[in-house]
């Protein structure tokens, strides 16, 4: 146990954190989103004015707040993984919990945003811009929920002492997924809310 910190081999061997299976899944998800984003760009190019017009109705402040929440969440998850590598049991579950709460904050903000939009009678069938806005954000919204389910499981497992310096495999897999959810939002937010 006390040799790991100075083991030179540890620093030279490139290791994929987490499970290869989760990386396949992440890749598949990223491809799906990439096709979705490209479709958005394609549809927008054919109708720039309409997209620009309705883009202004989106609440960018709430979007920015959500970006902050997700980045913070990702940061906590990074801390949790680092804590696992240090074998700092307490800090693992605490940081996962903070990450989870950030996700919860994201969902709350998003629900407020949706409530305003749906309240105004906007739906998938309103126009192409709103179709993409709702489709992309809702697709992502569900990913946040899935990410939070994963974090909840990790939290439970970490409380049972499942993770440590030599056993961070599952934790890293879940963390990788959570970072993907974050990354997707970092593309989605400027694309749909800001860029014109």
């Amino acid at each position, binding site marked *: 146990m006390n040799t790991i910190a100075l083991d030179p081999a540890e620093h030279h*061997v*490139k*290791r*994929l*954190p*987490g*499970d*290869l*299976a*989760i*990386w*396949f*899944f992440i890749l598949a998800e990223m491809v799906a989103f990439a096709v979705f984003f490209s479709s958005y760009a394609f549809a927008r190019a054919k109708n720039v004015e309409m997209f620009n017009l309705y883009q202004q109705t989106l609440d960018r402040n709430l979007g920015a707040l959500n970006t902050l929440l997700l980045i913070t969440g990702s940061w906590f998850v990074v801390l949790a993984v680092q804590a696992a590598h240090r074998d700092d049991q307490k800090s693992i579950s605490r940081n996962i919990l903070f990450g989870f709460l950030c996700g919860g904050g994201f969902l709350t903000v998003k629900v407020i945003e949706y409530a305003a939009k749906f309240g105004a009678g906007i*739906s*998938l*069938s309103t126009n192409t811009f709103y179709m993409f806005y709702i489709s992309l954000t*809702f*697709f992502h919204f*569900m990913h946040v929920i*899935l990410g939070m*389910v*994963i974090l909840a499981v990790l939290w439970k497992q970490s409380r049972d002492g499942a993770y440590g310096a030599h056993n961070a*495999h*599952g934790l890293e*897999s879940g963390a990788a997924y959570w970072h993907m959810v974050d990354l997707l939002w970092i593309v989605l937010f400027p694309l749909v809310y800001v860029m014109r």
Partner: protein
Amino acid sequence: MSGAFTKSMARNIFYGGTVFFFLLFLALSFDTLSQLPKRDMRANMTPQIAEGKKLWETHNCIGCHTLLGEGAYFAPELGNVVVRYGDEGVKAFIQSRPKEGIPGRRSMPQFNFTDEQLNAIVAFLKHVNSINTNNWPPNSQG
């Protein structure tokens, strides 16, 4: 790349991913069902149209024709046939099919429909033609 690849992780992702995408599909379907009344013209539904659909089904029309592009590709699209032939034209066509077929040609059976049945079929086909299909088919030939 020396990352581990475990069966239990692959299995969990299979279950999780399946549930996730099925829920998403349900959400979209739910939205669709709420939008359909604006598109499927259900407000115009009558018993005659329902009767026409039943005749359509019990004579297996879909075994040769397409309806909104679905079915067999042996005979013309009928979702817009009333546009091509008009109500009376459709009835006259169905009534005039020779019992023994047309030599050498694709032949439609003679179903011996009553006038009432013919009216129901036309009512059904007109109803289908009124559905909002996002402008499909591309032209009146179907």
